[in-house]
């Protein structure tokens, strides 16, 4: 994975890009992710990864690395984002621990 493996044409990347720029869209997404994922044409694989908050899977599909901790913040909030915050811990369980298990 990593920035060099970003899939620039992946629908998830456009969706996350716009979510952080459009608070109305973001709030609709927070209420119900399904219609927004449909609107952006995500594949079933991408959709399931969002439903599961499976950040590692999204990484493997080519979501831009920078978006991965942001996705945990979309679901768990951005304020006071220290290492023990919920958003950072969700990220850690998905990506760092997961990476360790494979490594």
């Amino acid at each position: 994975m990593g920035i060099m493996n970003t899939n620039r044409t992946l629908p998830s990347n456009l969706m996350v890009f716009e979510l952080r720029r459009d608070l109305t869209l973001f709030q609709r997404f927070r209420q119900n992710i399904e219609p927004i994922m449909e609107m952006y044409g995500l594949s079933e694989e991408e959709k399931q990864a969002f439903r599961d908050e499976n950040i590692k899977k999204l990484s493997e599909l080519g979501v831009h690395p920078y978006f991965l901790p942001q996705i945990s913040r979309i679901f768990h909030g951005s304020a006071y984002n220290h290492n023990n915050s919920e958003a950072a811990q969700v990220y850690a369980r998905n990506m760092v621990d997961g990476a360790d298990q494979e490594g």
Partner: protein
Amino acid sequence: MAQLVSTIALSHAPGLTGWLDKAPKEEQDSLVNGFSELGRILRDTRPDVIIGVANDHVLNLEFQNTPDFCVGTSDKWEGPAEWFKDWVAVPHYEVAGNKQVADTLVNAAGREGIRFAFRDKLLFDDNWSVPLYYLTPDYDIPLVPIHMNCVVPPLPQPEYCYRVGQTIAKIVRDELPDDMRVAFMATGGLSHDPGGPKYFDVDEKFDRWFLGLLEEGDPEKVLREATIDKMVAAGDGGTSELLAWLVTMGAVGDRPAKTVCYEPAVELRCGMGCVYWDMS
């Protein structure tokens, strides 16, 4: 001809404002003191405008058409962008831009073979919000923001970044209004890995090596040794923000950088530091 009175580079990661209290007390003091000192150095040169260059965190520059560099042409900016407010945790601010300087950069760079995209709307996240909070707490120096692509492949190469800095310095000298005093600022880095397995690590060894390299004042050596591969190895998701520092280096040539502060701030998830070049 205008004058380049100040050239600086500094980290911008949000831990500096968002959860600084989680870092050890001595790290907090070192960084706050260092960044405040850099602010004094900058303000003492009485710049009329700051030309800034920093990574766009895939917030403005779309995957569909990522430019290498995008110049902000508005006369008025504000930040932080809504979604980043509680993350960056600095008060809302407004800061003037300078459309005339921005337009000149776009058209003059084009004549030199350098393509700058441009737009009059840019969302600011930590890239400007964190540096301005420490450097110009009164938000009283106009900013021409240049968002660059440091993280969406393919990246602009170090040699190109250096040439862009040279070109900006030339435009300052040859095309900006007489007696205008210009500061040039890069923000970003040092080692960090948002979105990668080293998210909770800092590569102190890389950071100290990189700062030492800039202190030597030998651009050829920097361009030979500070490769994108090495940056990516030190933290895939974010370390290549140091490409912005290479842009400023293009403006200063073989002057040695002076490091004001550095801390491997693991709790802030980023190697943090700042440097300046003596332009007198």
